[in-house]
């Protein structure tokens, strides 16, 4: 099953809500948040799971019957772009054309989520540019809500980069992403050490992505495997064990995305304040 297979699915084809652990809850489907989110998946170091997060966010959008616009800022070895066809543009932020192609689009307040997989080597360039041209202020002015998903990796340089970002862009919501598979912070010492290392970061809300075992990881590899379709109509050739394992892995991640959206919806509900 791949993403070219007609998304969002037609009525009656099922959705993430219908396939979720609470079948009676169909509030997820077709509900469009009032805000235009720009999710910037980033880290100062490579191989810590930014492409996985971008992929998960994209599939979450599709699973909740919403379109999105994605940007893969790794012009050399894109991992995110090939999975979603024309939905994700591959851009090179080293040149002005690439900057225009991505940043101008990010500032369109059309309620369509934008998802950026920021190449680690473009990390400094992008945030430097954002500061130089006033990207985050402009976004706020246009009704766009940027969200930085900073991926922890436990290195001191990573912690320092997180503090620098928080100091440079104090008003920008940041989530600290811990991908236990790509960047295991605890190692053999386990969760306690991981929590200690995460505590060294600025006090952001966290997003946790559990580690997968080798068989599950391998099953995730093919570019044409759609995680949103997997919930509804898993490939028949896929092992039942792998299927249920992947679903069990996806559900908590999607729940965290959902809770993020709900929190924003509550925050913007004026009658509650």
């Amino acid at each position, binding site marked *: 099953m791949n993403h070219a297979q007609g998304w969002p699915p037609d009525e009656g084809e099922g959705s993430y809500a219908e396939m979720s652990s609470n079948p009676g809850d169909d509030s997820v489907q077709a509900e469009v948040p009032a805000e235009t989110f720009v999710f910037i998946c980033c880290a100062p170091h490579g191989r810590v799971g930014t492409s996985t997060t971008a992929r998960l966010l994209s599939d979450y959008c599709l699973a909740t019957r919403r379109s999105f616009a994605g940007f893969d800022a790794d012009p050399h070895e894109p991992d995110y772009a090939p999975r979603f066809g024309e939905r994700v543009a591959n851009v090179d932020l080293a040149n*002005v*054309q690439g*900057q*225009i192609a991505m*940043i*101008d689009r990010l*500032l369109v307040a059309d309620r369509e989520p934008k998802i950026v997989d920021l190449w680690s080597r473009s990390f400094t360039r992008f945030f430097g*540019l954002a500061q*130089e*041209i*006033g*990207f985050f202020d*402009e976004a706020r002015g246009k009704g766009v809500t940027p969200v930085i998903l900073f991926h922890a990796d436990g290195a001191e340089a990573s912690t320092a980069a997180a503090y620098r970002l928080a100091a440079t862009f104090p008003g920008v919501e940041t989530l600290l992403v811990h991908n236990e598979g790509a960047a295991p912070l605890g190692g053999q010492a386990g969760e306690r050490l991981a929590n200690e290392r995460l505590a060294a970061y600025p006090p952001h809300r966290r997003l946790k992505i559990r580690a997968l075992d080798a068989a599950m990881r391998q099953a995730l590899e093919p570019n044409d495997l759609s995680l949103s379709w997997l919930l509804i109509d898993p490939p028949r050739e896929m092992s039942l064990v792998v299927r249920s394992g992947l679903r069990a892995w996806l559900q908590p991640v999607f729940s965290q995305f959902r809770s993020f959206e709900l929190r924003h919806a509550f925050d913007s509900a004026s009658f509650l304040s």
Partner: protein
Amino acid sequence: MKPAVILVGADKGGVGKTTISRALLDYLAANNVLTRAFDTEFPRGTLKRFHGPITEVVDITQTADQMRIIDTLNAAQVKVSVIDTRAGALGGVLKALRDVGFLDAVKAGEYSFTLLHVLGPSIASLDEISEVAPYVQDANYFLVKNHINDTNFFEWDPVTHRHYFEKVRPSGELTIPKLNEMSYEQVEISGVPFSTFVANKTASGDPANQSFVLRGYVRTWQAKIADELNRVKLLDLLAGRD
């Protein structure tokens, strides 16, 4: 405030005189200084293309046009006049200003005179400096290094420096930073002042559809130029404040 003339010039072409004049007009407008401009690139007038409403194209070698500039300095409501000289005309313009008595009037304190001398990357620019020396004794004389077209400037060899600066003492140096080619070209195509481009407006004041990235680059570039002009206290010089 006494009437002020700011001359932007160089004898060499292609060093960015008009770009600097445009940036200067934006800076003055941003600081609420009413300004008029004269474009001596007769009859074409590149500056007029960008700042049409406040710019007149003049042939500074003609008496009638000299009168249009000089004789109206006192009468005009607008007290600051920017003159953008065409390539190769700096010496001629300075001579014309001397011949009509303007430089004497500056010496007598009637007018304020500022020369922004835009340098090219070659040693010929140093020769230009000595050529303008006789005309700038009473002027605020600034050497401008324009990096907008990626010019690499020669290092100022101390001996050469002394030789050329025996006769002239510049008030200071201004450095115009580089603006990336794409942003520059887009403003050129739009044919509007830099500030209008940044504000995402057309020449007629309607909303435009310019790239935010390019506007951001231009805004940052303008801010750096403003920092430079603030550093040399240009507004104070124009207002006659020490």
